[in-house]
């Protein structure tokens, strides 16, 4: 099993996975924060992002675009296209049901998730899609710890996006409108907040972040298939609940925490048990702090 010197390596492994969970968890938590919907199709949105990135990178390389601009362009293309998917999902599947109680949108979300899976299965096939660029496995070695350049890229992009999102929500007028809507949509609309636009924007932002996570993962692991969204979505949802659903810094903390715990559990106990450990911790957190690590207990909204 893991020796002392491998401990820090396991932490680095876990951080990389955790950063990805955190990016996906943001989408869950933002949507829940605004309309109290658990968007179970969000994992599939992440998977769609990975596909768009892979296809865009393939097309760009075919068109003779140099390698070092391919990746940023593929990221942008994936974020944009997936954002559109998020937007249309909200318009077509969720908005008509906004006043229909909580169960109908939840079931719609599950249906949408199956729809996206099958859409990709039918159009792209069941085989793994391989990212067309072979990314270098090189990296730097710091004592016992080895960090690949691609791991650094994932951590840097995730950190930048999280800081950016936090600034957006706290400092801009649109961010203020989002916070308003989250507190009380009816009141917000009465004081002139364009509630529908705010909700649409939330879906676009969440979907784009998930798409970035998807592209980073497909670059890191090299492959994606139509079922990839399921596990990733479940883990990210766990991360969001762990951090306190509806709470943006909570989702980030939850994601990182879950990734590191999983990495250590897989390293010290065994890969078969890492999900067990992750979910046991989730249950314990929910027993001791039902509102999650950073969540605040809010009185029921009437």
């Amino acid at each position, binding site marked *: 099993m893991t020796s002392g010197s491998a401990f820090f390596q396991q932490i680095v492994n876990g951080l990389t996975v955790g950063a990805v969970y955190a990016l996906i968890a943001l989408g869950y938590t933002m949507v829940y924060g605004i309309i109290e919907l658990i968007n179970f199709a969000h994992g599939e949105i992440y998977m769609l992002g990975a596909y768009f990135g892979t296809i865009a990178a393939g097309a760009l390389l075919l068109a003779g675009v140099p390698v070092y601009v391919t990746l940023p362009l593929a990221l942008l293309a994936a974020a944009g296209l997936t954002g559109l998917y998020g937007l249309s999902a909200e318009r077509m599947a969720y908005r008509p049901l906004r006043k229909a109680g909580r169960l109908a949108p939840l079931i719609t979300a599950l249906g949408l998730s199956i729809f996206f899976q099958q859409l990709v299965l039918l159009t792209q096939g069941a085989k793994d899609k391989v990212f067309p660029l072979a990314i270098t*496995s090189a990296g730097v070695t710091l004592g016992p710890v080895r960090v690949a350049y691609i791991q650094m890229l994932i951590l840097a992009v995730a950190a930048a996006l999280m800081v950016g999102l936090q600034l957006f929500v706290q400092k801009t007028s649109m961010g203020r409108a989002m916070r308003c809507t989250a507190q009380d949509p009816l009141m917000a609309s009465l004081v002139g907040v364009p509630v529908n636009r705010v909700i649409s924007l939330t879906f676009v932002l969440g979907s784009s972040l998930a798409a970035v996570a998807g592209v980073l993962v497909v670059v890191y*692991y090299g492959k994606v298939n139509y079922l990839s969204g399921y*596990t990733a979505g479940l883990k990210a949802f766990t991360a969001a609940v762990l951090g306190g659903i509806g709470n943006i810094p909570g989702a980030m903390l939850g994601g990182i925490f879950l990734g590191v715990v999983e990495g250590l559990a897989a390293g010290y106990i065994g890969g078969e048990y890492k999900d067990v450990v992750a979910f046991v911790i989730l249950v314990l957190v929910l027993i001791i702090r039902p509102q999650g690590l950073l969540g605040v207990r809010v009185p029921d909204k009437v």
Partner: protein
Amino acid sequence: MSLRHFTACSWASAALGLLLLVGCAGTDGKVIRVACVGPMTGEQAKQGKDMLEGAQLAVEEWNAKGGVLGKKIELLVGDDAQDPKQANAVANKMFTQGVVVIDGHYNSSCTIPASEVYNQRKMVCLTPASTNPQVTDRKYPTIFRVCGRDDQQGRAAAQWIAKHLPGARVAVLDDKTTYGQGLAGEFTKSYKELTGKEPVFTGVVVKEDQDHTPVLTNMKGSSPDIVYFGGLYPQGGLIVKQMRQLGMKTSFMSGDGTYDPEFIRIAGPENAEGSYLTFIPDQEKLPTAKKVVDAYKKRFGEVGPYSLYSYEAINIALQGMVKAGSEDGEKVAQAIHSMAFDTVFGPMQFDAKGDVLVSPYVMWQVQGGKLVQLPADS
């Protein structure tokens, strides 16, 4: 549903059922029916097509020579869609259609349940591609395997290491599936027997996972020179890629489940360079196969990895039938057990379980981003 409705419905379904039965009438004794059964649709449709083409070629050759026992051969096609339940259903369908010889299935998970039917109905079944030991370990008298077994493959890998890398520190990983665990287990057993050493590290990768860095980090601590992996190419590719990301130079060795160009693409050609895979020999280079390969290419194009096994499955069954002088499954099977066949792979004989006597596996290596067969004596 009211009772009257119910009665009406049952009459309707009974009538439909009768119609189906009419459609399933057996042969009238003027032809001998053989069937090629495999994944004809879905993700593995390519493998199904490879099998079918091999069978078609063999049947055409036999019919050109006048058939068997004075009758023409008719080739039926069955689709198991790589689904064990479907495999069982198609096996029963083949029985009702009067098929006496089955060339199939492709997946062990399909061959195993389907062979229960073939055994019960005394139909001769020769699988061209299912390598799980269970296929023949149940010792059913009419079930044969034309290709190799997973345990022969694990042994071939261990022999290679014992001969060419005698001092290497060996680690073993598996994916906990029937196939992967069986393969890794057989490798470890043979490795211990041949070298008297234990692997320096054993671990498990979870098939559903993408991130194998935790177990690889642990493995790194044992500083192995080579890792043997029992599992399939998606995980194999990820293992190689992530070892390199962790700065490990450990070589990689695996079996036929990893033999796929996708393995190199997922790992990255640079990372996969030098990896070893046990697989069947390149048939296009076998001198004994030249004539058949040429005929196959002329008729269908590219020869698939299991096309010629399917071709030989039909040949062996029909030769058995000629010797037995009967279409009776049990008699044909007895004849096959007693004979020595001259195949495109060289001489072939079956043991009491229905396995080939000589292990067909050879070592392949990734060289310059491509899979290349290593010479047997190097």
